[in-house]
């Protein structure tokens, strides 16, 4: 936790810096706050280290005459006290506003071209439907200046890091009865599955014509950052073809014909992968950049990822840099070998997630560099809210469900809340919710809360909380602790008012984001 620290030479002014990452570098962002003895004066969110040092220096020079070396030393000491190992020389350099960054570095990159990666895929034992994306970058000269060199390598890594898309492109083609060939294209939004690791995707086609359409082909362009765990197509017994393209795996469905108004829905269950960026630095200013996509496997109660690297070049690499971006749903329990600075650094970036950076010099030809990660879910919170309206659109109740993770073997806690908005209904309200069949209620609060347990046809348990409606504007809450060694089900409950249940869903929205929240 960042603390206020007095400006040297002043007794009434203080600065607080809250870095958003534990790794010092020019990309370090954070919040800088200024205080006097009355309290907060102002605060500024800074996008990078240059903005942080400028904010501190500007404030400092408002209170005292400018003194760059003292400011740099102060920031270095401050960051070190918060557990971030800072570099005085870099701070001073940024304070002196030597604009060495973006534009100059861009000039050093002479050319970038895509390269074939089959040999890498073979050497790295990449799965049949997975891919390595490769680029070869030529720089005019690797800077001798240590900071510029670091900045350039960081820029190459950042420019080539894989960005996980939120949508997946789907193309289709079909023939009308008059022989005309039509094509369509759409982007389908990725949804979330039953557990944090899962991602769902639905694509498909509907014949909107009055005649049948024939020779229907649907191509879903699946990004390599997802592993396909399961595919199903409604009402049809066909298997898709898969074709590896440079950036995506094409899933190709061929359907002989569709009758008027007939619709086909394709459902994918996907799993997130670790996105790895590899920078191989050869001696002659040629740098190879590889993007690989690594599976995360559930082994017992743990998630494990084993990542392989092999120097396939027939010469020694000057330097090897690897950055592994974990899906934000995960946190690291253990790395093998242990990530110890300066060769291994686990970076935690506020509201973004975790990445692991490895650096190694003089990697021999044929040398392997294997890493293993043992992962767990990042602390999660399920927040489900339902607004119940009557047929005239007036809000009657607001209901909520929160699931909070506990230690894996401890299970999780579900909290249900009812808020009565109008207060003119006195019938009982019931919330029926589903949990996995092998999960058990251990405790509930209040103890006299009425919760029934039943098992449905699919073997899941249905918990029904029956409650009297609270008075208008007030809340009625129950908390249930559940044990189970698998993750909970992320879904909303069904609501009943007396014996009436939901007639229609008017609006539905879902998202997964990293947030700073208060634990309910």
């Amino acid at each position: 936790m960042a603390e206020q620290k007095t400006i040297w030479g002043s007794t009434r002014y203080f600065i607080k810096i809250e870095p958003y990452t534990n790794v010092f570098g020019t990309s370090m962002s954070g919040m800088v706050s200024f205080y006097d003895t009355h309290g907060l004066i102002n605060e500024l969110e800074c996008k990078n280290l240059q903005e942080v040092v400028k904010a501190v220096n500007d404030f400092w020079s408002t209170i005292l005459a400018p003194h760059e070396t003292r400011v740099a030393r102060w920031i270095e000491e401050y960051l070190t006290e918060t557990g971030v190992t800072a570099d005085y020389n870099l701070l001073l350099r940024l304070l002196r506003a030597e604009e060495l960054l973006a534009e100059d570095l861009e000039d050093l990159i002479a050319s970038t071209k895509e390269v074939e990666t089959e040999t890498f895929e073979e050497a790295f034992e990449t799965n049949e439907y997975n891919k390595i994306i490769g680029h070869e970058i030529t720089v005019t000269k690797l800077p001798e200046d240590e900071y510029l060199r670091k900045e350039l390598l960081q820029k190459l890594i950042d420019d080539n890091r894989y960005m996980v898309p939120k949508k997946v492109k789907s193309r289709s083609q079909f023939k009308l009865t008059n022989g005309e060939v039509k094509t369509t294209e759409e982007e389908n939004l990725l949804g979330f599955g039953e557990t944090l690791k899962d991602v769902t995707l639905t694509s498909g086609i509907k014949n909107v014509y009055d005649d049948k359409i024939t020779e229907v082909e649907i191509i879903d362009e699946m990004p390599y950052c997802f592993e396909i765990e399961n595919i199903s197509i409604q009402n049809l017994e066909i298997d898709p073809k898969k074709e590896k393209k440079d950036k995506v795996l094409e899933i190709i469905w061929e359907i002989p014909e569709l009758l008027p108004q007939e619709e086909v829905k394709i459902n994918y269950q996907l799993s997130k992968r670790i996105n790895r960026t590899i920078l191989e630095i050869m001696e002659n200013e040629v740098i190879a950049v590889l993007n690989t996509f690594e599976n995360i496997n559930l082994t017992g109660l743990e998630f494990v990822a084993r990542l392989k690297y092999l120097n396939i070049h027939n010469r020694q690499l000057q330097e090897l840099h690897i950055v592994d971006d974990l899906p934000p749903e995960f946190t690291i329990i253990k790395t093998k070998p242990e990530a110890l600075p300066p060769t291994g650094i686990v970076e935690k970036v506020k509201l973004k997630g975790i990445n692991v950076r490895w650096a190694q010099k003089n990697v021999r030809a044929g040398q392997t560099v294997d890493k293993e990660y043992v992962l767990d879910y990042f602390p999660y919170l399920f927040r489900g809210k339902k607004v119940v309206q009557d047929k005239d659109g007036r809000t009657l109740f607001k209901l909520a469900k929160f699931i909070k993770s506990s230690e894996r073997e401890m299970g999780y806690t579900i909290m249900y809340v009812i808020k009565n908005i109008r207060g003119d209904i006195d019938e009982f309200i019931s919330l029926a919710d589903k949990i996995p069949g092998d999960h058990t209620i251990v405790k509930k609060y209040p103890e006299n809360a009425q919760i029934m347990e039943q098992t449905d046809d699919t073997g899941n348990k249905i918990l029904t909380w029956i409650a009297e409606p609270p008075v208008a504007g007030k809340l009625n809450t129950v908390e249930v602790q559940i044990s189970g060694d698998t993750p909970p089900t992320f879904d909303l409950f069904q609501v009943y008012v007396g014996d009436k249940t939901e007639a229609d869903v008017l609006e539905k929205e879902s998202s997964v984001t990293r947030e700073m929240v208060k634990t309910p």
Partner: protein
Amino acid sequence: MSTEDKVQKVMREGREILSTKTSDDFLKFMERNIIEIEKKDKLVESVILWNFVAEAMENMGETDIVAYAYSKLISRYLLLEDLPKAEEIYNLSMEKELTSFHLDTVRTIFERRKHSPSNREIIKIHKMDIFGDLDIIPASPSTYFESAALVRRYIHNNLPKGTYSVTVLNHKNKSKEDIEISTEDLVEYEVISMEEIVRID
């Protein structure tokens, strides 16, 4: 070269830059030279140059740079312990409705240094519930605050933890402002969020 000559030289070169290059180039040149002068504790000369920057940029309609120059002027007058001059620039910046992060910071420092009279009063406090709805809670009238930052501190110290929307009446200019503030201990979570509106007949 004497400091006086240096100031004249910087102003002359500054004018040349103004006629050939952009306002940002002008500011960069001036600031670099002013920092050098300030390192020798020549704050009076710094004030002359910042006044020059403010005037030149005002003529060109560069309000962001004028706001920046004013922030520098207020802070330099404060360092020189010249409160009347600092107040003059402070008032000018208010009249011209200039605003920037640094100017706001320096104005708050000036207000506190000057012990300007309290002028803000909390007239309404809403607390946010678990659904994000704002419920009104009793406010404590006739407590006056010098600045919005002190209102924030009051909420932090005197109300139970929560997320609040506080309406403050500024008696000086009779305006109302809403301050959003959360005093909760926030924790980073991966949040899976689902929202539905359903109809029951």
